[in-house]
């Protein structure tokens, strides 16, 4: 039946094998970069440099070790075309490139110069040949693409996670004269009231964790189980925290409850000194007060902005509870209330614990709300910022506080991962039955309806106040409608007002989003699909990426990338990298959940059809992952647009982004301008989210994979 010509098909193609030509391409790339791009970093960046500066930075213009680079690179060519057996050739590549990379770094550190573009390209080329080398030795069973991916990911984690974090340790544990001082950490933290800051942070985190979990549970039960129309309103609530920059909720709270807020105004109007209605003997008991600043305000702001996150987590969990278990309980004479208490809630207990711990981490890591509302209430994240931002410039203190914050969130994260993440009662049956869900007990539903109505009104008022705040002259003093704030931001040409920061935000996020999604999905692929020596390193790096608070990243990057050999502060690159790192959990999480739904036999089938791993990823995995990749990219983009904690440390006058610009206006007292910008940002993000949801609706592929 099969034609005899098919026998010829078994042509020996070796997809994993790298030909000398591949080496040559990398060498040419390194060579070209060496001759034409700056070997040393330019003081003012590539595009602002004068021609003299540019020429001076070229590697071959200087009489140092860098002159050996072309010779070093050229030596690869005879090696690649020689007849050395593959395995030995692998060793030659591996050792030779390691020596090269080591030498380059040594030279830069030794001479206190910063790396330029061509040095980066040469290191990258050497790293690529290194990956080819170890694959020839047998790493990843000779698969040079996967080897390269692993080397790349490890390199990224090393340079942009581990190296900065060690810099924090270095700052804390090594004294100014360079000697090792293990007790310096204690000296730093006892020099001010660290116990109070830590206590404040923990107290806030636990309160917010508990409250958001309880409220999230109420929302989730209501959204999944209630029979009222209001439940549909709850279901779209999740979108708000995604599109809202973290500190905007805090700002709107000030508009409502601040010293000159609406509530205070109303109270003053009714009961104040010259008030409308003064009960006898109660003259002057109502005064304008700043009760919103401090714990109350931060707590309220974080509860409002984090409850939807907890709701998302818990509603997902509740909707996977098998209804037949509850029906079994009902048939045994248990009431709906008893069933809820004895069956449903215990089943989602891991989800509840998860929501609590996540709430804690998010609260401790939150920077924007404490900054706006903190007042006298110091928490770690703001204290870190003030140690560097103000006149203090105390890197030791910032690093010590950063370490404490990092350890707190690492501990909570590891507890969540190891203890809660493993146990799930809900998925035990694995069968999604289409039974009817048990409705909420009547009284409970009524209570929840009231609660949620109040909540929605409050949230509505907050967002309305942000929107309106941009259109009144001076909130609290003069409520005359005006477009002056918006005019100041948008009508004075594209090089002033809000435009430069908005352009930066959009541009950086636009570059960071695909980049972070690609690496995130790659990490997810390596974690879910590959076993090899050294994988624990990537696992740990991933944990750090997930757990590290933005302020800690900010401090670490300032410490790490302000000096040779890698000097990036003040550049757009560092902001893009920061945004990418901050958004990376999105891609990793999305990739992991999508990959866990794709049977490995699809990839195996492709391998057995003679396809190499690159072809398999391109033709099989990527098309199936496309919906995930698109939504991860969109979400990463939004996250990059709204992030503030890390970028505030790194943004400069030239690289200001939308969030840092808004915060700077808040600090200088221009609330009107700040909320005007904030409302535009929220509106833009909302449109973008809706657009993405319309265009990346469930495709046929997603549907098919999900049913498997």
């Amino acid at each position, binding site marked *: *039946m*099969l034609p005899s010509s*098919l026998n010829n*098909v078994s042509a020996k193609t070796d997809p994993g094998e790298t030909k000398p030509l591949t080496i040559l391409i990398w060498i040419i790339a390194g060579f070209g970069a060496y001759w034409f791009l700056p070997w040393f970093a330019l003081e003012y960046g590539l595009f602002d440099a004068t021609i003299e500066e540019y020429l001076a930075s070229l590697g071959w213009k200087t009489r140092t070790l860098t002159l050996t680079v072309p010779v070093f690179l050229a030596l690869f060519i005879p090696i690649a075309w020689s007849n050395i057996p593959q395995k030995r050739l692998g060793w030659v590549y591996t050792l030779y490139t390691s020596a090269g990379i080591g030498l380059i770094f040594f030279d830069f550190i030794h001479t206190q110069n910063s790396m330029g573009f061509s040095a980066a390209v040469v290191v990258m080329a050497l790293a690529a040949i290194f990956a080819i080398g170890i694959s020839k030795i047998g790493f990843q069973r000779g698969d040079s693409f996967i080897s390269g991916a692993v080397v790349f990911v490890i390199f990224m984690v090393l340079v942009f996670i581990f190296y900065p974090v060690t810099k924090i340790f270095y700052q804390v544990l090594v004294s100014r004269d360079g000697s090792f001082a293990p007790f310096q950490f204690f000296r730093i933290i006892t020099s001010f009231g660290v116990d109070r800051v830590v206590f404040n942070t923990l107290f806030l985190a636990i309160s917010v964790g508990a409250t958001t979990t309880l409220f999230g549970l109420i929302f989730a039960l209501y959204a999944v189980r209630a029979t009222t129309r209001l439940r549909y309103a709850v279901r779209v609530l999740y979108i708000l925290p995604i599109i809202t920059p973290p500190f905007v909720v805090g700002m709107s709270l000030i508009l409502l409850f601040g010293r000159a807020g609406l509530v205070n105004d109303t109270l003053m109007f009714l009961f104040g000194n010259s008030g409308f209605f003064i009960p006898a003997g109660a003259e002057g008991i109502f005064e304008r007060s700043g009760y919103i600043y401090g714990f109350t305000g931060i707590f309220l702001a974080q509860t409002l902005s984090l409850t939807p996150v907890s709701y998302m987590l818990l509603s997902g969990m509740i909707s996977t509870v098998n209804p037949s278990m509850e029906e079994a309980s009902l048939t045994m004479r248990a009431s709906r209330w008893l069933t809820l208490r004895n069956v449903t809630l215990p089943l989602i207990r891991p989800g509840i614990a998860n929501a609590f711990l996540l709430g804690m981490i998010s609260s401790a890591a939150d920077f924007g709300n404490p900054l706006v509302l903190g007042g006298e209430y110091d928490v770690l994240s703001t204290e870190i910022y003030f140690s560097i931002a103000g006149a203090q410039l105390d890197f030791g203190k910032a690093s010590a506080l950063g370490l404490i914050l990092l350890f707190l969130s690492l501990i909570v994260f590891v507890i969540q991962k190891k203890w809660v993440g493993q146990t799930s009662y809900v998925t035990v049956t694995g069968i999604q039955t289409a039974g009817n869900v048990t409705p909420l007990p009547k009284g409970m539903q009524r209570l929840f309806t009231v609660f949620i109505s109040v909540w929605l009104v409050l949230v509505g008022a907050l967002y309305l106040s942000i929107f309106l705040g941009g259109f009144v002259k001076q909130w609290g003093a003069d409520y005359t409608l005006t477009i002056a704030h918006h005019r100041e931001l948008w009508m004075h040409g594209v090089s002033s007002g809000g435009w430069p920061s908005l352009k930066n935000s959009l541009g950086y996020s636009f570059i960071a989003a695909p980049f972070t999604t690609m690496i995130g999905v790659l990490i997810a692929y390596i974690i879910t699909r590959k076993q090899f020596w050294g994988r624990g390193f990537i696992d740990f790096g991933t944990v750090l990426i997930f757990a590290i608070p933005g302020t800690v990243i900010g401090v670490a990057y300032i410490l790490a990338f302000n000096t040779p050999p890698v000097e990036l502060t003040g550049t757009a690159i560092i902001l893009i990298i920061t945004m990418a790192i901050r958004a990376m959990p999105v891609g990793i999480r999305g990739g992991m959940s999508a990959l866990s739904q794709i049977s490995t036999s*699809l990839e195996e089938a492709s391998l057995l059809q003679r396809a190499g791993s690159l072809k398999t990823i391109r033709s099989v995995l990527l098309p199936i992952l496309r919906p995930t990749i698109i939504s991860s990219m969109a979400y990463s983009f939004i996250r990059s647009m709204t992030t503030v904690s890390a970028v505030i440390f790194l943004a400069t006058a030239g690289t200001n982004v939308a969030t840092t610009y808004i915060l700077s206006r808040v600090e200088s007292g221009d609330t009107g301008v700040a909320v005007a910008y904030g409302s535009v940002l929220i509106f833009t993000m909302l449109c973008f989210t809706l657009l993405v949801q319309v265009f990346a609706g469930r495709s046929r592929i997603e549907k098919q994979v999900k049913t498997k």
Partner: protein
Amino acid sequence: MDKTDSIKITLKDVSKHFGAVKALDEINIQFAPGTMTTLLGPSGCGKTTLLRLISGLEIATSGEIWFGGENVTDLSATRRDVGMVFQSYALFPHMTVERNVGYGLGVLKVDPSEITERVQQALKMVNLDGYQKRYPDELSGGQQQRVAVARAMVLKPKVLLFDEPLSNIDSKLRRSMREDIRKLQKSSGITSIYVTHDQAEALAVSDEVIVINEGKIEQQGPPKSLYHLPKTAFVANFIGESNVVDATLEKDGSGKSVIIGDTCIPLPENKKVPADIGPIQISLRPEMVQIKAESSSGTAIEGVISQSAYMGPVIEYSIETKVGNLFTRAPAHHKQYQLNQKVYLHIEPAELIVIPAPA
């Protein structure tokens, strides 16, 4: 019909360890050229691991794997020239049937017009010509599996592997599917290995059956010999139905006889039995045991009916005897026995399956 030059597959001392777990322990097998061999065993016995070692998707901890004269131990799956049919079919959901089957040809850079032609031939082979433009989710389970078979065979691999290919197909279709697979395998002459936990499927499709238990080969042989001459109680129990009872082999004048409880059954002289007398095990298959109301000779086992179940053409009986509860069946149109009725179980001495006592 043209046949490939069928190759022999040899496994030499192949072991696979997952950490401390020995999934497979020093396996030695030869698969004869052009045959279909079934790896049969309970789930978790290592049969799928063995298949994956042969495919190259898993790499052996130690030992060698040879395809004909070529040592493929260190070759990755991509380079081994193996076709495989997966339990889950593993059809690419985002590709049409045509692109699924032609995927490997595309990888090998075959001319597009030729791909179309070969895909059509492969689909004809599995009676699915005309389905080229369909997506996998528009096909039934059986059709999807046939596409998977076409895809595995279109490259004419040296080795064809089937990993429980029929377990997701409903039982009525299964019979015709396994006949189709067997027919295709025979006509192509590709050395094939078939993993299943269904003993009936194993007996029906294969030239040879290898029974695997706990990472070790229990027995290898043609289906008939495994059924009639199981070497271990495990094989006797796993293939077909069987009552395995303890017995003793004794010298009886010039010949030997088997003592089951207090019944002595003399064996015919030409029956192959272990040389040493002593404890052995006997496998009594239901079809060798005849129930009678009275004993016609001294070689019947006495018992009492403890349970009966009407199954349509036959009635299944459980009979309580001195050597334990024995299970057999009798045609329903015969005399029916009552619960607690005393009966005699007659066994033809020549049919007795003697299993040497485990060492």
